[in-house]
């Protein structure tokens, strides 16, 4: 059969490339090509000291990376702490935010009274501009004049220093992120749930399967693709969190709640640090890429079976 198929005309062979060309060109122009410069910059040390402007950077191999993993270097301790925080932050978002999004989708999937209100209540946070949302939470978390402490104090508790206490600051930022994103994740689960035919459930109900059994045996496996998609994007987004930190304590006391991308922003404007910030960017991209690729490959292998 295959052998007898005449070779495709050139136009037909070019078709897929023409279809992806606009996206591919834009991504190359604004993302990939600029990122290549990040790689080369991460291997160079900018000229420093008096009259450094205009002098070419010096190739230093992996020295920038080496410095970043050195606690005694002026950015080393900050990098390691922010890196650790970013991992904790991303895992917490995935481990708490994604199940919450799924739960909300399951609760709000079917026609029911006040459906619009319920969905709005959990989805509106993702409609807020990050800087606005963070400012609202900075009001809630404020130590002296904040809402959370006003409530706690009216209950006789002395109040918590949400953003100023180094043991609490990261948790506060995580709370805000989950609140901001759970409804967003819900939307994808809702779309995914629509692809599951209703009659499967009807058959299962007739067989006497309980709600939980139906969920574990039917819904979850059928939502696998959506679940993987949401896990991947939630992980990626967690690594790109930055704007809200401006209003939420600027990374906490001594970087106790700082995240990698914000640390990059704090140091990007001084030439002497360009090697370091680019090295940090490479580490960040590396972690995300590894996570995404492994998920993607697992998924593709799964698909082809």
């Amino acid at each position: 059969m295959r052998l007898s198929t005449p070779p495709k005309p050139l136009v037909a062979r070019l078709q897929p490339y023409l279809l992806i060309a606009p996206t591919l060109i834009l991504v190359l122009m604004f993302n990939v090509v600029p990122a290549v410069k990040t790689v080369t910059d991460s291997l160079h040390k900018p000229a420093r000291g008096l009259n450094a402007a205009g002098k070419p950077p010096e190739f230093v191999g992996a020295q920038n990376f080496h410095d970043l993993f050195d606690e005694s270097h002026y950015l080393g301790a900050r990098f390691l702490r922010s890196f650790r925080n970013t991992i904790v932050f991303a895992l917490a978002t995935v481990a708490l935010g994604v199940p919450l999004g799924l739960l909300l989708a399951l609760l709000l999937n079917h026609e029911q009274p006040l459906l619009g209100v319920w969905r709005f209540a959990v989805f509106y946070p993702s409609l807020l501009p990050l800087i606005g949302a963070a400012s609202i939470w900075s009001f809630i978390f404020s130590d002296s004049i904040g809402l959370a402490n006003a409530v706690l104090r009216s209950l006789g508790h002395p109040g918590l220093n949400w953003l100023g206490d180094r043991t609490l600051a990261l948790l506060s930022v995580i709370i805000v992120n989950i609140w901001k994103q759970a409804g967003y994740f819900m939307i994808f689960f809702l779309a995914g749930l629509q692809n599951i035919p209703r009659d499967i459930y009807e058959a299962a109900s007739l067989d006497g399967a309980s709600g939980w059994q139906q969920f574990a045996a039917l819904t979850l496996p059928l939502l696998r693709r959506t679940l993987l998609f949401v896990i991947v994007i939630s992980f990626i987004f967690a690594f790109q969190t930055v704007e809200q930190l401006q209003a939420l304590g600027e990374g906490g006391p001594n970087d106790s709640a700082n995240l990698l991308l914000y640390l990059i922003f704090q140091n990007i404007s001084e030439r002497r640090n360009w090697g370091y910030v680019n090295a940090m960017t490479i580490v960040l991209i590396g972690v995300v890429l590894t996570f995404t690729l492994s998920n993607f490959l697992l998924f593709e292998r799964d698909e082809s079976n």
Partner: protein
Amino acid sequence: MSICRKACIAFVILALLASAGIAQDDIVIDFYFPSATANDAEGIFQRYADAFQERNEGITINPVFTGSYTDTRNTILTELQGGGAGPDVAVMLSIDLYSFAEEGYIIPAQGFIDAMDDGGAYIDDFFPALMANGVDEEGNVWSIPFQRSTPILYYNAELLAEAGYDSPPTNNAELVEIAQALTTEDRDGLLVPVAGGFPIWMYQSFAIAYGQNIVSDDPTEVYFNTPEAVAAVEFVRSLGTDLGVGPAGGAAWGDTPVAFLAGQAAMIYHTTGNLSRILDGAEFEVGVWYLPSGPAGDDGTGYGSPTGGGNLYIFDDGSKSDAELDAIWKWVMFLSSAEIQADWGATTGYIASNATAWETEPLASRAMEYPQYGVARDQLQFADKEFSSYATITVQGIINKTLESILTSESEDAQAAMDVAQAQIDGILAEYK
């Protein structure tokens, strides 16, 4: 005048309007400004631009809002590094001098001043403390003071009077005594906003009060681990721990004036940039006084605070014509004139930067009505340079993180933490010697 001529003129005017009001050979000055107040800065600068254009035909001012100070710095750097033209004049932090001078983006104002007939008088009218951050180690003036401020002590005069204190504290011992007397279950005696990412400025007040500013005229020298510098941070930490007059780790910057206005703090350290807001918003008598001296002086010699705020910078990579530079300098002169300084100071609360402005309306009558403005001005005689060095952002980052770790008691041993920081800073600044 004939009808024909009138029609002609009308036609020309219409044509001018149609070309968006900018004549072909007008010099256009891109002016980037940050906003750090709740005023309609865009509206105010447009008003200034209109007034300027009326007096200077052939020059058009294009005011562009560029966010906070940090946003402004990053916007300008991104634009210049990305091959853009950048602004002609910008308001940036007075401490941004070395960062931009190092990159060769800005030019000194000194050349323009030297070319003036009365350049000396122009410069001498500014308060000397406000010039400190705009001058390099060789004495060249780079930037001109525009919206300046210092930290100052605000106190709730009614609460102090109730507790039997008729005058504000003048040294740290009195400060602690009054703060403790005024601390209750729902009120802090004293809030010092060192939490929230930028403790260095407030901390500098204490370091100066203890007799040692952490910065000098030499941008390669920093004094962060001297006994005075250590004692100062230990004192600030004790306010939230042993002395218990405020929250441990310090108060958050933005919330401090709100707490003060609501009567939840008896005294606060905050910027004079806040003066108008606090005076207009308070429902009690607001007292303002110099930051108390540390143990260094008992007769007022230990008073002192750093300066802060934004200066006017001139951008040129060497490509601008004399006519353009001339227009740029006219705009800088205009914004730093007594007329504009008086208006800007009265509207926002920033300290008008030259002496003449204080005799000019509307500031003169505002200062008459509220003597607190005069206190902010008079404190300038004790004020000292704000922290700035080569690699300012990096060095400032080291200092801020170290202060935070000490203030939140993550580092118990202040001296040890500051020694580590000092060594890192010295390593960086050695490259500039």
